[in-house]
C-alpha cells in the first residue's frame, strides 16, 4: 500500500510528461530513426545513439529521453526484418528468431512470420512495462540477491538449451557447443591477461572475435551461399502465402506462450551482467518444451518466432532496472544512454541509486516511453511487413551481392579492422561446414555467446566461495547453494532431461541425407585438430594464471572426448548411417546448379579487392561484375542497381559517420571520403 502511495502520483506525473504533443513528436522521430538504423544488420542502437549524442547537451530532459528511447526501443523490433527475411541475425536479440523465421520466409510465409514476430514484440514490450511499473520499486533487493553463483547457474541454464538444439546426435551438438566455447576464449583472458590462441603480433585476435561477426558467419553466410547456389528466390516458387493478418492471429492463438516468454524476458533482463545474450535462447527452449507437436521446429514453426520475439522487447524493459537503479548498463546502448542522460538539461539527473528517490516520475516516464515507442515502432513495422516481404520473391541472385555488401559492412563496424572481413569469411566457412554436416549451428553460437560469462562467473564465484569456505564451511555452502541457485539447478536438470529426449525431433537443418564416410570424417578430424592445438596452447599458460587456463582445458577436454566418441562411432558404423549426414549428397545443395567454391569465390573476391583498393571501389567492381556475369543482367540494369547500392551504402555510412574498410591503395594515396 505504501508503495502504491508513492508510485501512483509519480505514475500520473510521468503520463503528464509523456502526453505532450511535442514529446510524442520527438518519440516518433526517434522511432523512425531507430527503424532506419535497425534494419541495417550489425549496427544497432549504439550507432544510432552515438549519432544523437551531440544534440543531447543541455536539451530538455523529457525531449531528449523521448528521442533516445524511441531510437533504442525499436532496434530489437526492426532487426527482425533481417533475421526473418534474410536469415541474418541483426543483433543478439534476434538470433533465435532466425531458426524458425527464416524457414517460414523460405516457405513464402515471410509476411506472416514478420507480423507474428511484431505482434509478439509489441505485446512483450507492454507486458514488460506493466510488470516493471510495480517491480522497479521492489527490485533492488532482488537484484542484489543475484550474486555470482546465481549468475553462473543462470548462464548454465542458458547453456543447457544446447540440449534442446543439439540435433539428432546429442554428441555432435555438444561438440559444436564446445567448439563455440573454445572459439570464444580466443584473445587476452579477462582475468590474468594470458594470451590464448593469439600473439601480440596479431593484435586483432587479442581482443577476441566479436559476436556480430560470429553470428553473421554462422547463420548468414551459409544461407546466402546456399541460396545463391540454387539460384532461386528465398520464397520457394516465388509465391507469397500467409498475409500479415494471419501472423497476428497466430500470435493471438499463442498469447499465453507470449505472456510467459515476456516474463522470462523481463526477469532475465533485470539481472545485470547477463545482458540479452541468453534470453532469446531460454525463451526458445521454453517454447519448444511447451509445444506438443515438436516436429516443425527449425522448419518454420510460428511458435518458434513468437517465443523469442516476446522475450526480447520485454528484456529491454527489464534491462532498465540495473541501468536506472544501479547505474550499471545492461548493454552497450544502455551505457551510452547513461552517459547521455548526464548531458540532459542542467545535468542533475544522475542515473543510479538516486533515481527512485529523487526522480521517480522520470523513471516511470522512461519505462512508459519505452512501451509507447514499442507500440509505435511495431505498428509501423507491421504496416511495412507486407511490402517488404516481397523481397523474398526476388530472384536471389539479384539480392545476394547487396547482402554481401551489407554483411561485410556490418562486420567491419564491429572492430573497424580489415581483419574483421577475414574473420567473417573464416567463421563463414566454419558455418558452411557445420550446416553441411548437420552439426548444430545454434549450439555453436550459444557456446560462443556464453563462453565469456561461463569463464568469468566460474572463476569469480570459485574465488569468492573458497574465501567463504576459509571462514567456515557453513558460510561457503550457504554462499554456493542459495535458494535461487537450487531452483535454477532444478530447472536446468529438468530442461536438459526433457531437452535430450526432444532434441531428436527437432531438425534445425531439415532432414539431411547421409552419405559416404570420407567428408564428415575429415571435418571431424579438422575440429579435433583445432581442439588439440587449443588444448596444447592452454596448457602452456603458466600455472600461476590458473584462472586463464582451467576453463579452456576443461571445456576443450570435454569437447575432445565427445569428438573421440564420435570418431569411434564413425569408424564402426556403416556408410549411409545418419551420423554421416551430408547436405552435398542429396537435397537442395546437392542439386544446386552452382558449386560451393565457385560461389564462395565471389565473396572472397570482394574481400580480396577490398584489401587492394578499399571497400567502395571494390564494391563498385564487385557489383558490376556480379550482376553482369553471374546474374546476367543488362548493362542498364547493372549500372542502375550498382549505383543504387553504392549510393545507399554511402548515405547510411555518411549519416552515421562511419568509415569503410581501407585497402592498400588508401595507404599509398590520400583519397576523399567515401573512397578513403
Amino acid at each position, binding site marked *: 500500500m505504501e508503495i502504491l502511495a508513492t508510485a501512483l502520483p509519480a505514475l500520473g506525473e510521468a503520463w503528464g510528461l509523456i502526453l505532450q504533443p*511535442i514529446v510524442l513528436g520527438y518519440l516518433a522521430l526517434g522511432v523512425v530513426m531507430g527503424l532506419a538504423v535497425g534494419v541495417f544488420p550489425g549496427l544497432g542502437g*549504439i550507432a544510432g*545513439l*552515438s549519432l544523437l*549524442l*551531440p544534440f543531447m*547537451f*543541455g*536539451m*530538455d530532459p*523529457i*525531449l531528449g529521453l523521448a528521442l533516445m528511447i524511441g531510437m533504442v526501443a525499436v532496434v530489437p523490433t526492426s532487426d527482425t526484418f533481417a533475421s526473418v527475411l534474410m536469415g541474418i541475425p541483426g543483433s543478439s536479440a534476434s538470433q533465435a528468431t532466425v531458426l524458425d523465421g527464416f524457414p517460414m520466409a523460405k516457405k513464402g510465409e515471410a509476411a506472416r512470420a514478420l507480423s507474428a514476430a511484431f505482434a509478439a514484440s509489441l505485446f512483450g514490450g507492454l507486458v514488460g512495462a506493466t510488470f516493471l511499473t510495480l517491480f522497479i520499486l521492489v527490485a533492488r533487493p532482488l537484484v*542484489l*540477491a*543475484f*550474486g*555470482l553463483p546465481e549468475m553462473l547457474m543462470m548462464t548454465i541454464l542458458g547453456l543447457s538449451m544446447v540440449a534442446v538444439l543439439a540435433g539428432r546426435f546429442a554428441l555432435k551438438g555438444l561438440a559444436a557447443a564446445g567448439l563455440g566455447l573454445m572459439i570464444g576464449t580466443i584473445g587476452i583472458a*579477462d*582475468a*590474468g*591477461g594470458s594470451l590464448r590462441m593469439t600473439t*601480440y603480433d596479431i*593484435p586483432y585476435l*587479442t*581482443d577476441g572475435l566479436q559476436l556480430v561477426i560470429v553470428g553473421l558467419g554462422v547463420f548468414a553466410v551459409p544461407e546466402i551461399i546456399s541460396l545463391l547456389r540454387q539460384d532461386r528466390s528465398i520464397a520457394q516458387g516465388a509465391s507469397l502465402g500467409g498475409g500479415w493478418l494471419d501472423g497476428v492471429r497466430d500470435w493471438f492463438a499463442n498469447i499465453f506462450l507470449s505472456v510467459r516468454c515476456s516474463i522470462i524476458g523481463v526477469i532475465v533482463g533485470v539481472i*545485470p*551482467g547477463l545482458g540479452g545474450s541468453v534470453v532469446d535462447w531460454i525463451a526458445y527452449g521454453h517454447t519448444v518444451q511447451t509445444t506438443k507437436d515438436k516436429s516443425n521446429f527449425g522448419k518454420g514453426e510460428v511458435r518458434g518466432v513468437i517465443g523469442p520475439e516476446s522475450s526480447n522487447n520485454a528484456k529491454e524493459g527489464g534491462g532498465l532496472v540495473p541501468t536506472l537503479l*544501479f*547505474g*550499471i*548498463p545492461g548493454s*552497450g546502448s544502455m*551505457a*551510452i544512454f547513461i*552517459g*547521455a542522460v*548526464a*548531458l540532459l538539461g*542542467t*545535468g542533475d539527473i*544522475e*542515473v*543510479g*541509486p*538516486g533515481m527512485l528517490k529523487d526522480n521517480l516520475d522520470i523513471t516511470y516516464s522512461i519505462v512508459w516511453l519505452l512501451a509507447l515507442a514499442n507500440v509505435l515502432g511495431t505498428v509501423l513495422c507491421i504496416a511495412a511487413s507486407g511490402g517488404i516481404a516481397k523481397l523474398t520473391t526476388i530472384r536471389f541472385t539479384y539480392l545476394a551481392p547487396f547482402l554481401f555488401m551489407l554483411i561485410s559492412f556490418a562486420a567491419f563496424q564491429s*572492430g*573497424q*579492422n580489415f581483419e574483421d572481413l577475414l574473420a567473417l569469411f573464416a567463421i563463414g566457412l566454419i558455418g558452411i561446414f557445420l550446416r553441411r554436416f548437420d552439426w548444430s549451428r545454434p549450439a555453436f553460437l550459444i557456446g560462443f555467446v556464453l563462453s565469456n560469462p561461463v569463464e*568469468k562467473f566460474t*572463476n*569469480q564465484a570459485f*574465488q*569468492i566461495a573458497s*574465501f567463504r569456505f*576459509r571462514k567456515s564451511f557453513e558460510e561457503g555452502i550457504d554462499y554456493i547453494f542459495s535458494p535461487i541457485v537450487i531452483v535454477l539447478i532444478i530447472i536446468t536438470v529438468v530442461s536438459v532431461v526433457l531437452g535430450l529426449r526432444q532434441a531428436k525431433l527437432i531438425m534445425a537443418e531439415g532432414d539431411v541425407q547421409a552419405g559416404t564416410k570420407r567428408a564428415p570424417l575429415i571435418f571431424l578430424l579438422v575440429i579435433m585438430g583445432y581442439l588439440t592445438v587449443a588444448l596444447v596452447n592452454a596448457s602452456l599458460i*603458466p600455472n*600461476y*594464471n590458473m*584462472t586463464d587456463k582451467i576453463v579452456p582445458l576443461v571445456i576443450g577436454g570435454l569437447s575432445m572426448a565427445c569428438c573421440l566418441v564420435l570418431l569411434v562411432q564413425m569408424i564402426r558404423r556403416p556408410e549411409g548411417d545418419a551420423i554421416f549426414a551430408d547436405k552435398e549428397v542429396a537435397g537442395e545443395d546437392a542439386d544446386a546448379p552452382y558449386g560451393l567454391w565457385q560461389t564462395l569465390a565471389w565473396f572472397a573476391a570482394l574481400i580480396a579487392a577490398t584489401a587492394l583498393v578499399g571497400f567502395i571501389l571494390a564494391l563498385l567492381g564487385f557489383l558490376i561484375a556480379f550482376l553482369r556475369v553471374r546474374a546476367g543482367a543488362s548493362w542498364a540494369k547493372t549500372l542502375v542497381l550498382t549505383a543504387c547500392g553504392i549510393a545507399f551504402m554511402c548515405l547510411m555510412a555518411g549519416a552515421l*559517420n562511419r568509415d569503410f574498410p581501407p585497402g592498400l591503395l588508401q595507404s599509398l594515396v590520400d583519397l576523399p571520403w567515401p573512397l578513403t
Partner: protein
Amino acid sequence: MTQTSFTRRVVVGMVAAAAMVAPAAAEVDFSGKTIEWVIPFSETGGSAKWANFFAPLLSEALPGNPTVVVKFMPGAGSTKGANWFQQQKHKDGTLIFGSSGSTQFPYLLGDPRVRYEYSDWIPIMATGTGGVAYLNAEDGARFDGSADGLKDTDFIFGSQGATGLDLVPLLAWQMLGMNVEPVFGIKGRGDGRLMFERGEATIDYQTSSGYLGGSADLVAAGSAVPMMTWGALDENGVIVRDPTFPELPSFKEVCEATDGCETSGVAWDAWKAFFISGYPSQKIAFLPQGTPQEVVDTYVAAFEAVRSRPDFAEISANEVGKYPMFAGAGATNATKEATTVSPEAREYVVNWLKGAYGVSLE
C-alpha cells in the same frame, strides 16, 4: 517552448562564439570544417562521456564553429587507437586524440603492444579526477585513520585488472600491509560497486564521480565506511587532501599513521608516479606531431574559452568535478607528469605485478 529554448541556446552560442573569435589566432579558421576527435575506447566508456561533453563546447569556442564529431577506435586496451594516432601527421588541424589513464599505464609499464610515444604528441587540454576507497561497515568500524586494525582481515576486491587504474588502490593497500585479494575480470567500476553491495566484495574504490553517484548513498545508509582518497596534487606537486572530499584523509595521511608504511622510498615514488598518471592527469587531448604553432594556439585559446565560461563549473560538475582543467602549458606539464616515471619505480611495479599477480609484460 522547450524546443525553442534549445534552438535559442544554439543560436546564442553561435553568435557569442562568432563575436569572440580569438584575435591572436585570427588566421586559423575552421568554417565549414569537421573536426574529428578520436577516442581509443568504445562508445560506452568514461572517455566517450568526456569527449562528448567537451565536443559541443569546443565547437562553439573554435573560430568558424566547425562541427566536432567524436570517433571511436577501440581495441587492444586502447593501444590500437594510440598506435594509429602515432602514425598521423598534421594535415589541416582537424584531428585531435583523447588518451586516458588506460593509455598511459601500458606506456609506462612497457606493454609490448605499445608503439606510440607521448613526447611526439602535442597536448592541448587535460583533466583529472580523484578516487575514494571504502570498506564494509563491519571492517570499517575497526578503521581509525590507520590501517593497523585491518592487517589481520582478508579483503575481497572486484577488479578490472592489475595493470589498469586498479593498480593504484592495489598497491596502496599492499603498502598499508592489508591483505586484499582481487577478483579479476569485472567490466567497469560500477560492477565492482555492485559486487560490494551484494556483500561478495568487502572493499571497493570509485573515481570521484562514481563515488558521488552511487557509493555516497551507501555511506549515508551506513553500509559502507569511507577509508581514504588518493589525494590531489597542489601546484608544487605535493599530495594534499582531495578538494572534493576535504573531510576524508588522503592515502598519504593513512600511510603515515600506519606502522610499516613509508611515504618515501621506491615504493612510495612508484605509487605516486602511477597515481599522477592515472588520476590528476587522467584524460588528455592531443594534436598530432608536426602541428604548426598557430593551430596549437587556436585550440588552446578555445579550451581556455571553454574553461572561462561563466557556467563551466556548473555544467562540468559531472564530468570534471572540483578538479582543475588544464589548457596549453598546464596540459603540457600534466602530460609530462603523467608519462614520466623513474626506471626504479617502473621496475618496482613490474616486479610487484609479476610477484603478486603473475602478470608478465613481455
